[in-house]
């Protein structure tokens, strides 16, 4: 590791923020306090954290249906996130988007997306704008292994390469497309094999190792920023909970042994052990980080619970942008 201690601790903090937010969301969902669908990012924290730590605030990302982690990693505010999950008017989307559409455009997070694969073409547009303005920004498209089977991904990857855009395709290969193993839906093992077909470099990283992800992201982002075009990162990772909801063991489509095996490679706990062993941090400091962020989460839950639901007259607001046409 030649990353500075600050960067190493920042990576840790980003992951813990995601974990705590997601665990809290899961608990709230179990007690029926969250309407709608919930796709938890637990287990995949190293991917969003490692990639987003390589970005500037004005770099933009597109996300997936499993998008909370991307927003947290990009600096999302717990209060507004929790309020959105609870469908409150103080939420990021004023209670009109929810978990599947949560966004913060001011942080460059262009929205979780309920349509698998739909974020990649939008990221191509963001990258086009970056290149068009020559301001040195880049775009990152996050997507899962399943999304690489949908046409929109193919069109986006090809167009990004054809137009030589400053974009990174960040694949979170968690080995399942909803409830079906990846091996049943494609005849290849590594998503990265697809990169060559578009004419971009691709790299496989251990998606449970935040440093490995971050180093790959630094390289891919630098490449995009200096005008050398798109690249693909395949992070091998795993979702600790179900496709949606909070169940983890006893699921029909994957074995408990498999889940247990992946959980032993927990991206946060393994990283903490490495940091402590290297003397970058101490157990006490780690505990302090968790405790402080736990308090932030509790504050966010209280904020969300005490926030009002949307006024009924908001139903028809923001269908269109009214006035202000150039």
């Amino acid at each position, binding site marked *: 590791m030649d990353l500075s201690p600050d960067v190493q601790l920042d990576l840790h903090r980003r992951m813990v923020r995601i974990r705590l937010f997601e665990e809290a969301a899961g608990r709230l969902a179990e007690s029926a306090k969250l309407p709608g669908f919930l796709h938890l990012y637990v287990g995949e924290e190293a991917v969003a954290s490692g990639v987003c730590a390589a970005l500037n605030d004005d770099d*933009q990302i*597109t996300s997936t249906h499993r998008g909370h982690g991307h927003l947290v990693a990009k600096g999302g505010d717990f209060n507004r996130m929790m309020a959105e999950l609870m469908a409150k008017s103080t*939420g*990021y*989307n*004023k*209670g*009109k*988007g929810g978990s599947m*559409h949560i*966004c*913060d*455009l*001011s942080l460059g997070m*262009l*929205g979780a*997306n*309920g*349509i698998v694969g*739909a974020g*990649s*073409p*939008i*990221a*191509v*547009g*963001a*990258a*086009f*704008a*970056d290149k*068009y*303005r020559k301001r040195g920004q880049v*775009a990152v498209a996050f997507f899962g292994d399943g999304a690489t089977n949908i*046409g*929109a991904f193919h*069109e*986006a990857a*090809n*167009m990004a390469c*054809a*137009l030589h855009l400053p974009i990174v395709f960040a694949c979170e290969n968690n080995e399942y497309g909803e409830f079906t193993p990846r091996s049943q839906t494609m005849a290849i093992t590594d998503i990265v094999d697809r990169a060559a077909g578009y004419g971009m470099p691709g790299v496989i990283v251990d998606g449970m190792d935040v440093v490995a992800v971050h180093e790959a992201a630094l390289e891919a982002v630098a490449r995009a920023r200096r005008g050398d075009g798109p690249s693909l990162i395949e992070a091998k990772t795993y979702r600790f909970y179900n496709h949606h909801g909070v169940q983890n063991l006893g699921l029909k489509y994957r074995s408990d042994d498999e889940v247990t095996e992946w959980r032993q490679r927990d991206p946060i706990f393994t990283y903490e052990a490495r940091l402590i062993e290297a003397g970058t941090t101490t157990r006490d400091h780690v505990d302090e980080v968790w405790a402080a962020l736990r308090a932030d989460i509790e504050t966010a839950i209280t904020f969300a619970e005490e926030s009002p639901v949307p006024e009924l007259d908001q139903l028809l*607001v*923001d*269908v*269109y*942008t009214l006035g*202000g*046409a*150039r």
Partner: protein
Amino acid sequence: MSDERMLAYGGAFNEAVRQEMEVDPDVFCAGEDIGGFGGVFQSYAGLQKRFGADRVVDTPISEQAIIGLGVGAAVSGLRPIVDLMFMDFMCVAMDQIVNQAAKLKYMFGGTATVPLTITTAGGAGLSAAAQHSQSLEALLCHIPGLIVVYPSNPYDMKGLMTACIRENNPTIMVKHKRLLGMSGHVPEEAYLIPLGRATVARPGTDVTVVAWGRMANEALAAAEKLSGEGIECEVIDPRTLQPLDMETIVQSARKTNRVVVVHEAVRFGGLGAEIAAQIQEDAFDYLDAPVTRIGAPFSPVPFSPVLEAQYVPDAKKIAAGVRETLARPFAVS
């Protein structure tokens, strides 16, 4: 005098794009064949030469990514014009149009603005058969968040296209393929026709005929012929189909008491049904006859020129529909 300047419908489109690109560096165009070739209908002719390949971009044949490019660039602050060669190809890009472009503003709680213009060519009349001839405007008008524009003449084309480019919501500009060569008066300077505002294309007293795109011209031809028979049609061209200016239509219906709605799309589930329904809601007591709907029969657009001519409504069919509507006895109870 610029007032006397004539320009074709396709040229009016081109001029609107060029003038907006000249004044706003955030405006760019992307689509299949629009750069070097100028577009299959030459709507974008000369623009790449004028503005360069960075602003008039030839894309792969990738309709989803073309719309996605526009959505992503629009939320990033640019003002994209993206082209789908034929209206039928919108079906390939429906997710990006319906689930992304139309929805972002609302589902992001108003924090996103999508100043995107999608341009396309609709309508039959070129023996282009079932996949290159459709009028799918009703599909689009059903989606909250989209603005749908369908001009019937060169003057409206330029003013509406300018409005679309300057609009902060996603707009879909439908050009009718058979109108591209239609010539008409078009001022040289940039001007706006407000979106969502219908026009009375011909004033009349006996019957209201609502029609847009190519059908507005057929309706005007029918009105001219019927005038010789002593029937005065008021032809309303909505110009923008979503949001639809029902106020102007209902006002006319209350005046003439009889309405014929014409569209090139199939009758079933077409916009004519919506217009007829709203007229009966808002002007029921004024009607002397049921609202007549004239549209294509319920089949794909045929290839054969004789079948296609049979399929598409024209001035003759519209005139017949008007006569029939006027012939319905006004029942006094």
